[in-house]
């Protein structure tokens, strides 16, 4: 029995009348790479944003390392709609902000690269270490934290060397080629010392060769850092090659889950992606 790192229970996210994510439940175990796929507009990114604390869900909860970190069960009118399995938990709301979630040990990347443009590669990664500092404002200003600072710089240097970014560490983050910016974003997420890495379409806008490189890169991260990875992706090559398990979303609902080869042959998934012909 493997240990669960992330568990999503009955998460529903509603924007006005639109149900973006409908009763999503999924589980990610330690050391796994799990993917969430689905056609455009299926609610993948919304699900991701709920898990990372950007949106507070309309209903449901998220567990991380056997600790409930996000929870909301609606009251009043909504209560009837989303009773879920937790009928007795209606008054709880837990809505941590993304920074608190990151400090708990989860880090994410973004669909459209969001590096800090005014900083060098090294500083980008070093700044991500800020959330792990122990020094206060005064001691940092008066340089009484030199030991910690040196320690963090050392760690960043080692991380960059591991991820083959050490040779460009003094360049501006935005001057890197696209593939390296992606890698830098992952490096930056790793610098926050997460247990779970969340990747939002890491291969978006990449050519097949870059995608292949990224695939081995993600697999390497799992092996080298003993990292658990949860990713959203469009590129089927990447997903099928590295994921242990796959969840498929369509119109907010989970339509399939299982091993890559099961998903590949699942009729519902093929229908969702290719559409059902009229006379079928």
């Amino acid at each position: 029995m493997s240990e669960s790192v992330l568990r999503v229970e009955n998460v529903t996210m509603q924007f006005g009348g639109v149900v973006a994510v409908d009763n999503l439940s999924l589980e990610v175990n330690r050391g796994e790479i799990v993917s969430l796929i689905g056609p455009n507009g299926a609610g993948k990114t919304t699900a991701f944003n709920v898990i990372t604390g950007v949106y507070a869900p309309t209903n449901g909860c998220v567990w991380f390392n056997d600790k409930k970190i996000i929870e909301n069960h609606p009251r009043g009118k909504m209560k009837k709609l989303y009773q879920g399995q937790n009928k007795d938990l209606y008054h709880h709301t837990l809505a941590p902000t993304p920074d608190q979630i990151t400090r708990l040990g989860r880090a994410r990347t973004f669909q459209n690269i969001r590096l800090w443009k005014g900083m060098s590669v090294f500083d980008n990664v070093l700044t991500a270490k800020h959330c792990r500092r122990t020094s206060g404002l005064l001691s940092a200003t008066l340089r009484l934290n030199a030991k910690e600072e040196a320690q963090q710089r050392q760690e960043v240097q080692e991380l960059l060397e591991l991820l083959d970014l050490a040779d460009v560490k003094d360049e501006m983050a935005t001057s890197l080629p696209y593939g390296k910016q992606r890698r830098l974003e992952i490096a930056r997420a790793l610098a926050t010392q997460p247990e779970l890495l969340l990747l939002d379409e890491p291969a978006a806008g990449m050519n097949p060769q870059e995608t292949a490189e990224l695939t081995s890169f993600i697999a390497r991260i799992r092996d080298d850092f003993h990292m658990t990875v949860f990713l959203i992706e469009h590129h089927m090559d990447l997903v099928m090659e590295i994921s242990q398990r796959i969840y498929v979303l369509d119109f907010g609902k989970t339509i399939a889950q299982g091993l890559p080869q099961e998903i590949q042959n699942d009729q519902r998934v093929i229908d969702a992606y290719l559409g059902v012909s009229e006379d079928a």
Partner: protein
Amino acid sequence: MMKQQSNKRTIVLGLILIAVMALLSVAAEALAGSVSGLSMLLVVLKKGTVYALLAVSMNLLNGFTGLFSLGQAGFMLLGAYTYAILAIPVAKRAGVFQYYDGGVVQFSIPEIFSGFLGDVVGSVIGMLLTLVLCGLLAALLGWLIGLPSLRLKSDYLAIATLGFAEILRTFIQFEGSAPLTNGSNTLRQYTTFQHLYPYVIIVGVCILLIVLLVNSTYGRAFKAIRDDEIAAEAMGINLARHKMLSFVISSFFAGVGGGLMAMYMSSVQAKGFTSAMTYEILLMVVIGGIGSISGSVIASFLFIGCSEWWLRFLDDSSNNIGSFQLLAPGFRMVVFSVFIMVIVLFFRRGLLGDRELPDLARRMKKSFRKEGKHK
């Protein structure tokens, strides 16, 4: 790796630089009697030093954290009034607060300290403490203002802080608070530093602290918020806390700057602290380069030099050649505006952009070396 070793060196170098500048200002003052033009230079330097601190404190917020605030004049006003009210000698209070029976504050911090530490040492310590108090009060106000207004972004934050500054000014001029603030009347005759070097030292230490802060882990977090708020939050930086920190620190130094400004002007009146003053400082920040501390310092000296000294002759209508009345009072500002437009046109990101002077020096060295190789 290099930076890490230079951490302690920054402090030492900064302190040495401050000491050298203080010595230079002492020397300049000693020579002021015998060299013509030097006394004018001293006036410019004094005002420029005070403005340098104000510009740098504004840059910390606008340039490094990306919070566009226009409340600077308000914090300066609070600092200036705190200093003036607390540093008027008791014997002179009846004269200053002539309409309000000497006012409600009946003590003077520099006098209290000179009571048991001797005249010179005591009053200097008292004045320094009063300046710190100016900063602390401004920081407290910054915290209070920040609570509601830091939820706002860009232009809206600017409007909110601008409003707070105007409210504060009106409140100080308000008849009801007059026993404390002397209403719309002038505060004067408080203890001040006569020489240039105390200004240089105080401002130098303050700017050194800001430089150290900006290059620390907190400074990096501020820059991360400026560059991409969403990414910063996702990387575990608490936005509310760090924005508040930056706002409060900037207010603190604006308050200290306000206290110094009160000293420099030797009399203060709330009427002068309008939003135009904020814009003046904003102009220095923009000319120097948003996100460059050395740029702000250079720009504030240039700005003060131009507006107080080098362009003064343009206002003198007796300098006109022939009968054509080109030079007249106010013409200085026309030329000045043209200057500013030229700077904005040719240095779109300010004189230094977001770089610092040492960076530029390093880059020049590099390009020289490259040229040498080509030959």
